[in-house]
């Protein structure tokens, strides 16, 4: 791609935003909506993190200390739902809103009014979800997977949690449709598919995953609703149904969903590493094909979440081998990131630090995933803290580090100011040290047999649990640094240049920092 295409944005035919609060409620501007998404995700990050700290505080000692077991289960359930649907997914959509139009040279998102609606469903959906905490019988406590028959014992919260999931699903589907339409229809002339930046590619594929599986989740929770209130027996053996059927349907959604939570971070890291290596991305096309392969495989591996449920042997074998296949395209990606750095002229600004942290620690999560993929071994690990360690490694120092790295990478572009690099480095090192103190001991706990979703445990697990809790508080409070840094950066600081980073390539860097309200109203031509 020609990164230095004509500086095509025009200052004459655009209008500024409407003043006041209504600007944010009625905006159709992709930058405004991106900002809304990112702040929403940031607020939810602290809410979900607060829940995590309640969990970790209870687990600091064996025995029951501060919460009763039912409330503990509500916290594990809501922590997951908030972090998945309220933090990682909105943060990705926010980054997509801000960056995709600028990266492909588009004047805005393809369907700007629907874009507004995608965002403005979210606060309502989460208000509904969090309101269940105050209902008769409390919030849902059966885990975010909502397995029946346990989830059907939820009190008044059940229909509310189901409808809030419907709302979030509607929002995600509309967001995904918008992203696909933008990428397919609004690319600048000359920007062929194989010239698109990797973040655009990974989001393109993620959007397809979203459209394919969010309706599946909607169907699954609809069946829960009708089983509870309308007498159907989808998940009731007495009527010829099967509770295991819910698990199959749920994980047919759930496994693509976990790639929805990681693929855009792959894209972010693939933007950041080349910039700070001052080299082109190694193996661009293999990155694209690897992403597509991972997306395809995500549809045929779902039952590895349920090896212990009692499937026929042939099923166990199929899902074991298909799962292990995922290591191949993922390995291609890690190899390419490392090879991009090979003989590069490296510098270690904060976005690069987070990207490197991502590569190392995501890979740890990938390896523990391979261990879990092996059916006979999974029989031991299933529903233990080993699983908790695994998915937190891929989601926190994986997905979340990718997001934070992306925010640091583009923050000077968005605000026009450079952030405080010293504070950023503190944020990175504190986060990295504490996230490992938090999650690494969980591997040992799981291997030793500590089950997940349990408020109490046998005394021999105390030491590692206390270490993990210390890590949790350290990690949680380190994020306040990030909040301070972002606010300071918005309020002022050293002015950023248009290109911001010496090694940066791509259309977004041809725009001023901060970019005007409307960009690329006349599209650049990519040679």
């Amino acid at each position, binding site marked *: 791609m020609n990164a230095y295409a004509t500086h095509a944005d025009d200052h004459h035919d655009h209008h500024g935003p409407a003043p006041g609060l209504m600007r944010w409620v009625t905006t159709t501007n992709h930058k405004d909506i991106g900002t809304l998404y990112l702040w929403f995700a940031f607020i939810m990050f602290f809410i979900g993190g607060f829940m995590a700290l309640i969990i970790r505080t209870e687990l600091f000692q064996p025995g029951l200390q501060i919460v009763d077991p039912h409330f503990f289960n509500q916290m594990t359930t809501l922590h997951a739902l908030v972090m998945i649907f309220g933090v990682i997914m909105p943060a990705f959509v926010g980054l997509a809103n801000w960056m995709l139009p600028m990266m492909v040279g588009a004047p805005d998102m393809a369907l700007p009014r629907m874009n507004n609606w995608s965002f403005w469903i979210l606060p309502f959906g989460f208000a509904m979800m969090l309101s269940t905490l105050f209902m008769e019988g409390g919030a849902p406590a059966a885990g975010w997977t909502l397995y029946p028959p346990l989830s059907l014992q939820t009190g008044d919260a059940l*229909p509310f949690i189901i409808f809030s999931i419907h709302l979030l699903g509607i929002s995600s589907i509309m967001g995904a449709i918008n992203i696909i339409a933008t990428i397919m229809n609004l690319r600048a002339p000359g920007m062929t598919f194989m010239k698109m930046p990797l973040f655009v590619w990974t989001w393109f594929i993620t959007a397809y995953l979203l459209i394919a599986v969010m309706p599946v989740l909607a169907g699954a929770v609809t069946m829960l609703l009708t089983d509870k209130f309308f007498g159907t027996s989808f998940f009731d053996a007495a009527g*010829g149904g099967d509770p295991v059927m819910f698990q199959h349907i749920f994980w047919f959604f759930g496994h693509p969903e976990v790639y929805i939570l990681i693929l855009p971070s792959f894209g972010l890291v693939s933007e950041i590493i080349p910039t700070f290596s001052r080299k082109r991305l190694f193996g661009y096309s293999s990155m694209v094909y690897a992403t597509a392969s991972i997306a395809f495989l995500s549809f045929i591996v779902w039952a590895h979440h349920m090896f212990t449920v009692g499937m026929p042997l042939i099923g166990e074998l199929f899902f074991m081998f298909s799962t292990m296949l995922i290591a191949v395209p993922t390995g291609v990606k890690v190899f390419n990131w490392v090879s991009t750095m090979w003989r590069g002229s490296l510098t270690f600004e904060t976005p690069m630090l987070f990207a490197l942290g991502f590569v190392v620690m995501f890979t740890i999560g990938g390896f523990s995933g391979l261990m879990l993929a092996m059916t006979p071994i999974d029989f031991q690990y299933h529903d233990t803290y080993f699983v908790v360690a695994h998915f937190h490694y891929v989601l926190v120092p994986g997905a979340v580090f990718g997001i934070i790295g992306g925010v640091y990478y583009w923050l000077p572009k968005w605000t026009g100011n450079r952030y405080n690099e010293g504070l950023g480095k503190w944020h990175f090192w504190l986060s990295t040290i504490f996230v490992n103190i938090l999650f690494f001991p969980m591997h040992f706990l799981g291997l030793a047999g500590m089950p997940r979703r349990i408020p109490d445990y046998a005394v021999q697990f105390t030491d590692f649990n206390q270490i993990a809790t210390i890590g949790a508080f350290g990690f949680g409070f380190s994020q306040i640094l990030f909040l301070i840094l972002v606010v300071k950066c918005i309020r002022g600081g050293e002015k950023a240049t248009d290109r911001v980073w010496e090694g940066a390539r791509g259309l977004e860097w041809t725009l001023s920092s901060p970019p005007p309200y409307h960009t690329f109203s006349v599209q650049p031509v990519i040679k």
Partner: protein
Amino acid sequence: MAEVARGHYFVPEAAKWPIVGSIALTLIMGGFAAYLNGSALGSKFSIVGFILLVVMLFGWFGTVIRESESGTYQPWEDMSFRLGMSWFIFSEVMFFAVFFGALYYARVLSVPWLLGEGTGIETHLQLWNTYSEIWPTNGPGDLGESDFHMGWWPLPFLNTIILLSSGVTVTWAHHAIKVNHRAQIIIGLFLTVALGFLFVYLQGVEYIEAFHAGMTLSSGIYGSTFFMLTGFHGMHVTLGAIMLTVMLFRAIRGHFTPERHFAFEAAAWYWHFVDVVWLGLFIFVYIL
């Protein structure tokens, strides 16, 4: 896509309808949830929300139709609408796939396991040893009052003919638009809408027959899959027929030119989609 720089892409200014839609959806769903929990106020909230949603749809689509008629949209914007509608329909396909999946799972796996197939032999002997129904079934617990079987003859077969014919009439209307034959557009659309609502009516007749025979959503897995699949399909037919009704009124008011009539095409795509889903239902729910 295009290799030359294009004109100005239409980016609308402030949109007031989305937030109205969010409030409407929240009222509908929150009210319904409260209703399910036994609250007397719940249904009132739902009704207010539904009215608000209708207002929102009129307002939002009205704005888009006015923009379209005033020539705001060029082929570039048109393509975004096409992509949006196509992928929306794909998401609907996946929604139906779940319920078809539940049907296959029950028929191919869970019911045979309850009957003792595979490793289910002990379950069968110990728990459900008198259970012997293959399909249709209301389960080993003999749930509901009946295991009435919905045959494919005569109503479902008639409905198949009706829907397929409506696919023909909507295509006829489309050809009429392309040659700008106004009378044929209106007649074709009218016939399509009429056939669509006739389908929904006959589906209602069939449901009443089923209820009289004691078959409901509570009649085990057969009743569950039957009513959920045909019920969601019926709702989608109704929605598609409403879309086409709007197109009919727009056609009467002189909208649509041979070159520009995407709204009609979107409704027609949707109509073909519910048509194809019905064929799946007819085969897997009624015949097999």
